[in-house]
């Protein structure tokens, strides 16, 4: 009977810790500003994706690739909002495509890293023993390899292109998620609700994924907001080196070409890319901080 009583006490209503945290994040003016900035870029990325698909389907050269030699090096103006580059291509349209690739990288690499990290972290933390030894061994080994070189090596082995970028970022960054989730699961394991579930004879899978996972998944959300800007940075880096995006405008390839034009006095392409990356990364950093503060009061970045 006591088992029932415990469950009934925990089950109904009330505001969950997670929802309360999100409410606190939303209440902050800075966070709302960040969300607005991210929404603008996300919309641009979606528009870029739609435009890309449309021109690919029509089999027409998209306007951001169309070279117009008469309109080279145009400063920002009414016709070209952010000017044109050295081949007469519109910088604004290329910037939107760059946002598309940056967001694609952030999302796809997270879709690779977070499931691996969450699964391994859950298994290691919940079962302990030999399973945990294997998980810890795997994560220590991956963590030991210098990040940037590991990313470069994976991209080299997989080959040039975005697939290599996604895999390189995804396969090197799951370790952080795995460690956080594992620590969190170990804490939750000794809680009353888990013991109650075990006393009721639920299977390990059900306890782990239906009961514990919802209580630790906020860790994945925080890590998502913090790894997204890092993923964008890596994509920009790889594309800059010519290993990433091939034949489509990415922020990295734009920096690579704008760098040479800068010395000829053409500043707008570099400025546009710099400001875009800065805005997105700053918004994610601030949002991640706010989320972490709300979810984990012990880690407050600004202490009163």
């Amino acid at each position: 009977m006591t088992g029932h009583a415990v469950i009934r006490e925990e089950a109904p209503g009330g505001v969950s810790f997670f929802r309360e945290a999100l409410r606190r994040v939303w209440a902050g003016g800075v966070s709302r500003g960040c969300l607005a900035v991210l929404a603008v870029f996300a919309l641009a990325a979606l528009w870029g994706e739609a435009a890309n698909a449309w021109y690919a389907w029509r089999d027409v050269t998209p306007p951001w690739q169309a070279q117009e030699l008469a309109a080279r090096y145009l400063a920002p103006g009414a016709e070209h909002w952010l000017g044109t580059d050295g081949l007469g291509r519109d910088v604004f349209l290329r910037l939107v495509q760059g946002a598309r690739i940056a967001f694609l990288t952030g999302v796809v690499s997270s879709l690779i890293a977070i499931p691996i990290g969450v699964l391994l972290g859950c298994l290691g933390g919940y079962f302990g023993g030999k399973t945990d030894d294997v998980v810890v061994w795997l994560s220590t080994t991956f963590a030991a390899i210098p990040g940037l070189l590991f990313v470069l090596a994976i991209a080299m082995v997989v080959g040039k292109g975005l697939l290599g970028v996604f895999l390189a970022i995804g396969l090197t960054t799951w370790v952080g998620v795995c460690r956080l989730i594992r620590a969190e699961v170990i804490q939750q394991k000794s809680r009353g609700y888990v013991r109650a579930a075990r006393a009721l004879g639920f299977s390990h899978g059900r306890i782990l994924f239906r009961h514990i996972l919802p209580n630790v998944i906020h860790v994945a959300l925080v890590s998502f907001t913090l790894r997204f800007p890092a993923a964008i940075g890596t994509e920009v880096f790889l594309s800059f080196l010519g290993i990433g995006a091939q034949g489509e405008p990415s922020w990295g390839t734009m920096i690579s070409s704008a760098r040479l034009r800068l010395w000829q006095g053409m500043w707008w392409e570099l400025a546009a890319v710099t400001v875009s990356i800065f805005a997105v990364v700053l918004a994610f950093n601030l949002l991640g901080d706010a989320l972490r503060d709300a979810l984990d009061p012990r880690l407050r970045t600004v202490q009163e």
Partner: protein
Amino acid sequence: MWRYVLKRLAQAVPTVVGVVLITFVLFNVVGGSPAAMVLGQNAGARSLEEFDAARGYNKPLFFGRWTATRALEAVDFSDAPPSVRAQWGAGESGPLRLADGEALRIPFAFPLPEGETWRLTIEGRGTGFPRHGNKSGRFSTVWKKVFHGVENPEFRAEGGAVEIERVRLARGTRHVLDSQLVHYAGRLLRLDFGTSTSLNQPVGNLLRAGIGPSLALTVPILIVELAVSLALALLCAYRRGSWLDRGLVAVCVALMSVNYLVWIVIGQFVFAYKLGWFPVWGFESWRHLLLPAGIGVATGLGVNVRFYRTVLLEEMHHDYVKTAFAKGLGPGRVLFKHVLKNALGPVITNVALALPFLYTGSVLLESFFGIPGLGYLSLNAIHSSDVDVVRAVVLVGALLFTAANILADVALAWVDPRVQLS
């Protein structure tokens, strides 16, 4: 203490084995032989095979008696492209047909070298198929022949026609464990990192040549960054909550959000090109290092100041700080003698974990400013698919990281009596 050091060393063994395995899986299993990329599209099968043999890529991955060879592409006549069918004289479609008494002409890509064992496997059917093959129903369907380089394997239809479906050739290994993994591990034990394909030099020599310039850049970065960020963090911690603290934290977050590439591009453009304060490119005197080192410090400052500030603030809440202030000590004495000393643990860990970065150098800084260090070397190696160089840099970096981890733990146990050695 020594027992603790030995224990930590023993714990690092699985990690080292793991790192060797990961590099093996990455470069040998997933990557495969770089022969085609290094030698180009027009290289013949023979030179590719020789490239593989020199680097051990012609062995089976983990173990095995037989391994693939480039002397003969395995062919399946049910879906072979026309160019392959023409090589075999196999007609338009379907299996390769041999009339009674006709011998199979095998289009080896090059004469099989002497001193090796080969195994030819032919799958087919027909009344003329040799009798001593594996039986399936009434007819033998698989015929295998083991032979040595100088002989020519003879497959002849006798007593009827033969339809051949598949042909494979395999090369014999010296023993079951004559594999890429064993070859790789053995070379590592002899500290042989292989040969660079683009520079034609032993990788060990390249690493030794690159370490000096890398250290010349990264050691000053590490020291200056540690000093500056600790000083700023102490300032923030002492004046916590003030406009100075808030301003510095905001600046740190902003600094963190500026892309690394942008730092370098703009820094080089403004300070070296526009203002002409520093040389733009090269590695001739210490003046060439000032700008890249300054940019290196600037890029890491945001993260480090924030980290140290958090660490110091955790300490500032303790009672001993209040006591120290209460008994009349000045802020300098409290901060440096008491707070910093107690916060040394995370500082040591952070510095120790930055040590491997000293070795790998900074890929971008080195290539932008023409500093011939290991970062520059690895980037060029990646562009020219120089697998041995990339693998060696990754491997040594990982080993150093593991060593730095142990070093951090031991140093922590040494400076902090609160750390339990059990």
